[in-house]
């Protein structure tokens, strides 16, 4: 409805109080009123769009920040025993590939990949919402790791007879499932098993360290508006971030909410009375900004976490990517929540 055709179809919204005359002005006016009507239609439509986008939103953030993998299923294509041109659209899978020695087989990664440093030299082929299909195809990959929700991309790849590894999100334990599956698919099963064992033993060591200590009730924030306590999103009782905080010796205050993210309003936060507040971000920020962001919590000065200066801001990708560095991430969180346990 960008353009409103001239002329009057006779079904314009009735004018209030004025008599219509046949001047050009009035004709234009009636046309505009029809446009007004159409605009209303668009507004209604766009409000529905917002509702749709809202569900999309959960999916977007969660796919980026939280969660890990499960069940990679091969399509009907034949899979080469050791693919040599792998494309990964998932940062966690990319990290796994490099960690098990399959790095040289990777030809391209997503636009959000930052680790290991080798990925900076690789081609970027978009990400969850904007995969660059043309570039992916032109790189002639023999394995593409995609999100389960990227159904259009999967269809296109299947049509091109390119094998895919389908990744979807779950908890901390599923990191090991993904690792094993990825290892098998790329011909590094043994290295993957070794890596899984070492991650597991590190996690066990951390669990032992914090065992028996008072577990702080922790609010885990993974997004909010900058420098204000608005639009706070916190981890619910599902997903790998919830699991990581549990392994690090904290109790998530929203453990009972069966969602990966909770829009934490002021009331909910006050009612749950967290002993500690843990802000996790994947993007590094300056020390100055970090202290300012922590200072913002003074607005809720009565919270135990704020009164006891137990508000922490971790801007380290390790804590938000469910890849081979999860044990390091858990270690960082454990050091933050239980500094005494590591003295």
């Amino acid at each position: 409805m960008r353009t409103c055709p001239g002329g009057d179809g006779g079904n314009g919204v009735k004018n209030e109080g004025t008599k219509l005359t046949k001047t050009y002005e009035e004709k234009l006016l009636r046309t505009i009123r029809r446009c007004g009507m159409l605009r209303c239609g668009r507004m209604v439509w766009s409000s529905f769009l917002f509702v749709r986008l809202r569900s999309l939103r959960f999916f977007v953030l969660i796919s980026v920040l939280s969660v890990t993998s499960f069940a990679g299923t091969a399509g009907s294509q034949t899979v080469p025993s050791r693919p040599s041109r792998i494309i990964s659209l998932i940062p966690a899978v990319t990290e796994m590939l490099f960690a098990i020695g399959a790095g040289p087989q990777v030809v391209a990664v997503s636009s959000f990949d930052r680790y290991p440093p080798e990925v900076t030299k690789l081609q970027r082929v978009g990400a969850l919402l904007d995969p660059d299909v043309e570039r992916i195809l032109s790189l002639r990959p023999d394995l593409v790791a995609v999100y389960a929700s990227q159904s259009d991309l999967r269809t296109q790849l299947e049509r091109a007879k390119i094998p895919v590894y389908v990744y979807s999100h779950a908890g901390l334990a599923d990191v090991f499932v993904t690792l094993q599956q990825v290892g098998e698919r790329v011909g590094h099963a043994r290295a993957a098993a070794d890596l899984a064992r070492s991650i597991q033993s590190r996690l066990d060591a951390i669990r032992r360290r914090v065992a028996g200590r008072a577990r702080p009730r922790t609010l885990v924030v993974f997004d909010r508006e900058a420098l204000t306590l608005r639009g706070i999103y916190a981890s619910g009782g599902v997903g790998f971030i919830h699991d990581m905080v549990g392994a690090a010796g904290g109790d998530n205050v929203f453990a009972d909410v069966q969602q990966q993210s909770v829009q934490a309003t002021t009331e909910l936060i006050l009612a749950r009375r967290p002993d500690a507040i843990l802000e996790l971000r994947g993007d590094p920020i300056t020390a100055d900004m970090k202290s300012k962001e922590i200072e913002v919590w003074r607005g809720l000065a009565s919270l135990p976490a704020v009164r006891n200066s137990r508000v922490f801001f971790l801007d380290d990708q390790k804590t938000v990517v469910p890849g081979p560095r999860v044990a390091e991430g858990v270690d960082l969180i454990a050091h933050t929540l239980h500094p005494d346990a590591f003295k």
Partner: protein
Amino acid sequence: MTVALARRLTLTVSGFGLLAVAAILTSPLIGSTHISLRRAFDRAIPFADNVDAQIFFIARLPRTLAGALVGSLLASAGVVFQGLLRNPLATPFTLGVSAGAALGAMLAITFSWSFAWAGVSAAAAASFLGSLAAVGIVYALARARHRGLSTNVLLLAGVTMNAFFSALILFVQYFADFAQTYRILRWLMGDLDISSYQPLLSALPLLIVSFVSFAWLARPLNLLSLGDESAETRGLNVVRAQRTAFVSASLATGAAVSVGGPVGFIGIVVPHLVRLIVGPDHRLVLPASALFGAAFLVGCDVLARTVMSPVELPVGVITALIGGPFFLWLLVRKR
């Protein structure tokens, strides 16, 4: 003012006023958590240990007051725009205010402008400036080739600015990452959880200016509904009335959006419901809409806070779900 009108005005204001007061008093008692009012007001318990008092005074009361402020500003701005444009389907967002505000907020979020001044966050301040920029452009266009304000040009320019700013939003969004895209969507849904009184205080001067202007505008809007020429012959300075209406309603909308985001449909649902009850006289419609708008949004927010308990929804989702069907009914309704 005739005696009959004075009586109707008293009746209207006291009726809708009671409704607004009832909504504002009830709303802080209801929420996703159960609190005891006696405990909340018990001075013997230190505030730091009194969760009930904290929830009442830090979470619910500011949120309720924000709902009242945003609701009454948007509802009365809706009345003024409908009167000014002589179009019953005009809303406070028709002339590009919300798109301009969204673009401002989007820029602040995407490029991580991080400052906070007197409790006003970067996104709030940028959204207010964005809305002023949008209406400023529309106003300049409407003045360009016309002695007064051409309502035709206003409407066309507003619709066009909405489209243009929406396009700019998409362009800026291309530079945003996932978390930022997600933050702007959340901002667009509207949210009243302000968690302090500071944003309300910052919006107060605009609120006062707007409502003083609205009080003056009641009679001019009645005359304007007869058409510019008829209004002029009855002694109204049409250009001044239009200008006052446009500026004050735009300021009101900008202030409301900077506090609660672009909460949709209030500006059209409330004025029409009020007109069904009190008739078309702006001297009654304006105060009644301001009061009923407050009550309506506070009520919607109570729903938003409780329907999905223990989690809470942004209020814009509720107003959209109520307002969308209402809007359609308004479209197809027989006159």
